[in-house]
């Protein structure tokens, strides 16, 4: 759970079930870390069906930026934040995961039930029922949402109903009477739109005066369903002119037609593949320019550092170690930002839910249920939230299988490696690069599915469960949400580059710079020849001497010795000692590979080339053979698609799967598979004569 905003509050008083609100309308001051007032925080739980905008409302009230999307089940855990009213008492909002019913046997429903019953509280808080419940309902789907309202009212807690997406209902010519609904429910009903901000001040005021409803809905499921239908029918009417009716029918027809296409077993898959390829092609085409700019910026920065400082160890350390190493990772920022921006836009349209529906048919033969789609999709950003999202999978075997294969999905940490290698393999061709890039994603998915099949046929044998998912309405994507997501992910990446990657780069620079050794006889000889040679030959002889010295120094450095020690393990895959070091150092985090290459292979020679060009054209110790031959690059690419090179993922797997043995199994299987596949690719290409 994100604990944003929770640390500053104090423990609420036990049994303070009566809200300490005054009746004056509060002006909502956004302060996510507001300290607790003298009365302690008042706890309000946000409850609602999936995809009704609870998190959007939560973010609006608390000024936070938790992930929201037009996809059911985005929130998997309860989160807390502070809404502060001008009453001296801060209000603690608890954003509960979306549930269709409180009575379901799902972990999300259990969390909701326990929070409402007061047997579950955020860490550091005293166990107590919330002071009020805000049931967020979708105005465009009143009857179904009222079922949950009925279940909430049965809890006899002060309740406010937020009639969210009221703007969308208006656009659909649905007229809902909040006063009528209020009379029938016996609690306050506030029409609002969390997306546009409409009605939120009124909702804040209503929360401050929440009261226990003077009505209890029927206790049986059938009775509740009848009541919900009747209530919805009584307060909602459709006012449509003949013209608007035609427009609605046309719009509905368009939605149906789109759904028929997007959820078609074959056409849907073709659309999905086209959308994904278009996404990657756009990323490669657009990211090229900012990448070049960043590359040049870091090169200029390195040059400036060298010019500003006198020649020596510090100058070399800062220019080649710190600036060069960090720059080699930061260069991939445009790709990461573009990927998250486009995925966020796509999510917001409601298309991804259709994609999940299509993928359900394809996941089932591999022993995974459609529930696995969301965790697997999330894993394309990062395996950690993907594995945590597996909590929503009701079946244990399904859940374990999904946890085990989630890291096969290509996460954003792999992007720098994919970009580096696809650029090396296909220089100057955005089309081929994007095809290879897409192929990496596909290869990861295929490996994950086959691994899931193997797991379900062996260690996790058993029947699967069917999947039911609501298809959200199509919406225009929110540019702001996409920009905020992009900003957050970009910042996270930069933070990582500025901390973990910087630390690794610094250590690598030291290891590759010491101990210092005497130059080789060939270099001394070349320098002697240069002194006696004509000016035209002098330059090339001196360059050759510098190359020999650099190569000799690197090969005899601590890094060189370590690399040569581990090289026999990776030699069958075509990796020299420099690549072997890159693979080993990136075990902590995959993106370190690019920085390692920048420090090890590109940091030794002073040329006018950019970091990417230096890495691409780097040679092995003999000075002739490229580090990245075609066969080696393909072998590396396959290795990084399949290998488990992420320590935090192993830790989360152990926690979520309920044992370290699952993490070890994941590590052994993925690394073994990666090694075998890379070996097969390299040896096959070599046998086929591909250098």
């Amino acid at each position: 759970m994100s604990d944003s905003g929770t640390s500053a509050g104090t423990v609420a008083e036990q049994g303070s079930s009566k809200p300490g609100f005054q009746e004056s309308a509060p002006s909502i001051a956004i302060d996510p870390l507001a300290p607790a007032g003298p009365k302690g925080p008042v706890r309000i739980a946000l409850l609602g069906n999936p995809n009704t905008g609870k998190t959007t409302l939560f973010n609006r009230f608390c000024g936070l930026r938790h992930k929201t999307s037009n996809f059911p089940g985005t929130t998997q855990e309860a989160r807390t934040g502070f809404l502060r009213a001008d009453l001296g008492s801060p209000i603690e909002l608890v954003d509960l995961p979306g549930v269709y019913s409180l009575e379901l046997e799902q972990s999300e429903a259990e969390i909701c039930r326990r929070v409402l019953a007061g047997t579950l509280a955020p860490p550091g808080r005293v166990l107590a029922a919330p002071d009020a419940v805000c049931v967020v309902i979708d105005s465009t789907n009143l009857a179904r949402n009222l079922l949950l309202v009925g279940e909430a009212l049965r809890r006899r807690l002060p309740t406010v109903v937020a009639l969210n997406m009221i703007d969308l209902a208006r656009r659909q010519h649905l007229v809902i009477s909040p006063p009528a609904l209020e009379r029938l429910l016996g609690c306050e009903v506030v029409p609002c739109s969390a997306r546009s901000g409409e009605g939120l001040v009124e909702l804040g005021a209503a929360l401050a005066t929440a009261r226990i409803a003077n009505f209890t809905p029927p206790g049986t499921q059938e009775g509740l369903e009848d009541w919900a239908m009747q209530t919805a029918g009584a307060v909602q009417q459709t006012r449509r002119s003949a013209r608007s009716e035609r427009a609605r029918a046309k719009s509905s027809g368009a939605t149906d037609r789109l759904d028929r296409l997007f959820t078609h077993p074959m056409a849907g898959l073709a659309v999905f593949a086209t959308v994904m390829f278009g996404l990657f092609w756009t990323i490669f085409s657009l990211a090229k320019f900012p990448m070049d700019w960043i590359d040049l910026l870091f090169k200029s920065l390195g040059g400036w550092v060298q010019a500003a400082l006198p020649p020596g160890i510090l100058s070399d350390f800062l220019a080649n170690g710190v600036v060069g190493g960090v720059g080699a990772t930061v260069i991939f920022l445009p790709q990461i930002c573009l990927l998250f921006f486009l995925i966020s836009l796509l999510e917001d349209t409601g298309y991804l839910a259709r994609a999940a529906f299509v993928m359900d048919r394809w996941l089932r033969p591999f022993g995974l249920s459609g529930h696995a789609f969301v965790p697997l999709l999330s894993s394309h950003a990062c395996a950690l939230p993907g594995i945590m999202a597996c909590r929503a999978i009701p079946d244990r075997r399904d859940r374990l299988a999904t946890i085990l294969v989630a890291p096969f999905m290509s996460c954003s940490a792999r992007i720098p490696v994919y970009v580096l290698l696809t650029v090396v393999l296909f220089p100057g061709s955005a089309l081929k690069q994007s095809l290879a890039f897409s192929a990496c994603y596909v290869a990861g998915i295929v490996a994950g599915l086959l691994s899931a099949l193997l797991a379900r046929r062996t260690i996790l044998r058993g029947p699967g469960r069917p999947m039911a998912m609501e298809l959200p309405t199509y919406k225009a994507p929110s540019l702001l949400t996409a920009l905020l997501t992009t900003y957050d992910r970009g910042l996270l990446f930069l933070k990582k580059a500025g901390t973990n990657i910087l630390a690794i780069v610094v250590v690598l620079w030291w290891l590759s710079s010491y101990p210092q050794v005497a130059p080789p006889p060939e270099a001394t000889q070349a320098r002697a020849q240069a002194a006696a040679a004509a000016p035209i030959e002098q330059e090339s002889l001196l360059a050759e001497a510098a190359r020999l010295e650099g190569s000799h120094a690197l090969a005899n450095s601590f890094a060189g010795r370590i690399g040569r020690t581990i090289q026999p393990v990776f030699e069958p895959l075509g990796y020299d000692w420099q690549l072997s070091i890159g693979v080993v150092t990136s075990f902590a985090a995959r993106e370190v590979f690019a920085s390692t290459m920048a420090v090890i292979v590109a940091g030794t020679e002073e040329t006018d080339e950019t970091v990417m060009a230096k890495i691409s054209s780097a040679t092995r110790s003999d000075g002739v053979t490229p580090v990245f031959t075609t066969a080696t690059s393909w072998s590396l690419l396959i290795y990084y698609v399949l290998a488990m090179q992420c320590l935090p993922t192993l830790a989360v797997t152990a926690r979520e799967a309920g044992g370290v043995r699952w993490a070890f199994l994941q590590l052994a299987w993925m690394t073994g598979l990666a090694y075998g596949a890379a070996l097969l690719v390299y040896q096959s290409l070599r046998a086929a004569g591909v250098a």
Partner: protein
Amino acid sequence: MTLATLPVHDWQFWVVTAIALVAAWLVLRMVVPARWWPWKKRRAGRPASLTIGGKTVPRK
């Protein structure tokens, strides 16, 4: 390898070595889980999003 192969008389060497040692410490912290550090006091239970009476929510 002897000390002579390291530029021990250059103060800049000691500066970068100190920085590298700090970085190595950070890398070690990143690679080795906190609970494996011998001086880390192990907390009862495991981290949880929500707790019941200080204990994690059992998952079904």
